């Protein structure tokens, strides 16, 4: 696939030129009118002191009288950025800015990129904790595994605002949504499907945990890592206990039959293969897909190239194929989940994002696609179907209310309209700024 390489080079080239032309992707802009000198006395001193005193008496009011309610910190230590690895906090900044752009554009959320020079995981916990007063939510991004599991677990315990690690929960959520619809099309139930996960990084471990939480049969689940199929008596099990508790716990729960071997043995008779391993093609061979059941569902999620090309998987008998890419049907992309999830939790001032809330987000996303009409090439909406986002937001927000995790009680309908309005405003803002010439047209540049 030479065209793919050419395409990637074109995007890389543009990204470098545009980034320097626009000098970054986001900025902070006022949202209040300033007409005369008096206005400054309202928005700043002396007027602002009165607001300060209100909040001093009740800290929760910081959600009502400031932009805290809509502000999310995007934290990373730069230890596992995209497929690049440990690039450090500064080099992660363009990626975090990109994330902030998606947050604003798709979810109407003000997200601040905050790569931190964290010397050790406890320092990182302390730093994020210390910034809690300024934030309505925390988004962890591109942090190496298993550190990311510890961080999410610890911060979920310690903070009173929602904490999210997109590489875990976002991926797991959107994968669950895609799977629910793929199972619907193949007439299978989640509780009865035999599911194999190939790759045991942050994404697939989180996916396995969420699938079990959503009703998948843990004993029928199989996880394959570089050492083969996980099972409770694998030689390195005690090493996992000490070094990767989350993988250890899955090893004990899964693979009831104690199947040993690699991916080929693991998919024998499986209905579902979810691969989040390393870029292909050829990482999963057609022979592997041929060993699956006659209702084979294959998600090859590695980026930039899936573990197996969709056409190869289909020819080998796969009924439904999904990848991480937008140029194939069925793109399983975190960006379908996180903007809506945060829109929802921010609008009810939620204290946490639980697994149940991620499951309703996945179900709502799946339902949206169902209403549009499912087929083997449409199991998920695409990122341009923006009507899906307020739906997810409303579902997540009302679940938070139901679970008693919301500071503000709104009905699902109120949440939906509110989300629609906020996201709509965000899109309009960009249009208006563009029309007014405040966002300049990109420079004309010859393609290399």
């Amino acid at each position, binding site marked *: 696939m030479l065209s793919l390489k050419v395409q990637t080079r074109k995007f890389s080239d543009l990204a470098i030129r545009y980034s320097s032309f626009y000098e970054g992707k986001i900025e902070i802009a006022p949202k209040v009118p300033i007409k005369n000198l008096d206005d400054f006395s309202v928005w700043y001193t002396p007027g602002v002191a009165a607001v300060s005193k209100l909040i001093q008496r009740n800290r929760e009011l910081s959600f009502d009288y400031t932009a805290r309610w809509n502000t999310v910190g995007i934290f990373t230590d730069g230890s596992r950025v995209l497929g690049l690895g440990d690039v450090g906090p500064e080099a992660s900044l363009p990626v975090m800015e990109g994330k902030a752009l998606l947050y604003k554009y798709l979810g109407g959320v003000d997200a601040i990129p905050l790569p931190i020079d964290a010397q050790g995981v406890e320092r990182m916990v302390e730093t994020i904790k210390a910034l809690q007063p300024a934030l309505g939510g925390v988004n962890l991004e591109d942090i190496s595994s298993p550190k990311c599991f510890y961080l999410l677990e610890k911060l979920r315990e310690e903070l009173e605002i929602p904490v999210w690690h997109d590489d875990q929960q976002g991926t797991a959520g959107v994968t669950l949504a895609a799977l629910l619809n793929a199972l619907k099309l193949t007439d299978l139930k989640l509780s009865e499907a035999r599911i194999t996960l190939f790759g045991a990084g942050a994404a697939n471990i989180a996916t396995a945990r969420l699938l079990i939480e959503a009703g998948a049969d843990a004993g029928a689940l199989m996880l394959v890592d570089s050492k083969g199929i996980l099972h409770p008596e694998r030689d390195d099990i*005690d090493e996992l206990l000490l070094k990767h508790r989350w993988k250890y716990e899955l090893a004990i729960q899964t693979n009831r039959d104690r199947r040993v071997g690699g991916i080929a043995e693991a998919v024998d008779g499986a209905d579902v293969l979810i691969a989040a391993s390393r870029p292909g093609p050829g990482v999963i061979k057609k022979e592997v897909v041929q060993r699956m059941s006659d209702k084979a569902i294959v998600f090859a999620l590695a980026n930039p190239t899936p573990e197996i090309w969709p056409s190869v998987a289909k020819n080998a008998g796969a009924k439904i194929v999904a990848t991480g890419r937008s140029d194939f049907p069925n793109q399983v992309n975190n960006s379908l989940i996180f903007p809506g999830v945060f829109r929802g939790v921010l609008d009810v001032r939620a204290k946490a994002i639980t697994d149940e809330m991620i499951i309703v987000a996945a179900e709502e996303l799946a339902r949206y696609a169902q209403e549009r009409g499912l087929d083997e090439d449409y199991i998920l909406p695409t990122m341009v179907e923006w009507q899906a986002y307020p739906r997810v937001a409303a579902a997540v927000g009302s679940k938070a209310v139901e679970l008693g995790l919301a500071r503000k009680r709104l009905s699902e309908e109120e949440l939906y309209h509110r989300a629609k309005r906020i996201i709509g405003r965000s899109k309009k803002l960009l249009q208006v700024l563009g029309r007014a010439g405040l966002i300049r047209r990109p420079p004309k540049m010859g393609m290399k």
Partner: protein
Amino acid sequence: MEGASELVLRLKKLNGEFDPLFAVSANATDACRHYLSDSIKDAKSLVLVSEQKGKIVGLLKADLRDRTFYQPRKEGAIVEFYILPEYRRKRLGEELIEEAVKALKRKGAQIITAEFPSQNQIAVNFYSKRGYRPLVSVYATEKV
């Protein structure tokens, strides 16, 4: 015997995770088997196993020691203790310890001790929770 000595080997490998001085040797598999069969014959040793559906899932080995200079003099020392991961947190370990303590008492033990790598925080927590306290420290160096 196979099942039991496999558990001893697993325990030794687990110890290896805590300090390079516990890296298992090449002949550890055979060594475990001999060690176990000797222990079973030895009147001063005790070997207990947990069985589930005909499979050995836990093992405990203890030794009776004479504390010549101290009193009480008779010590029952738990020196090997391992439960397969799947069977942990199900009170199996507890039962195994309780049985061992009873048997060691019958053999005359007046105090019970347990040995494990200093860095094994899971063991530290397990015994501390049951009222055990640190007694002996062993420090090591390779620089000789």
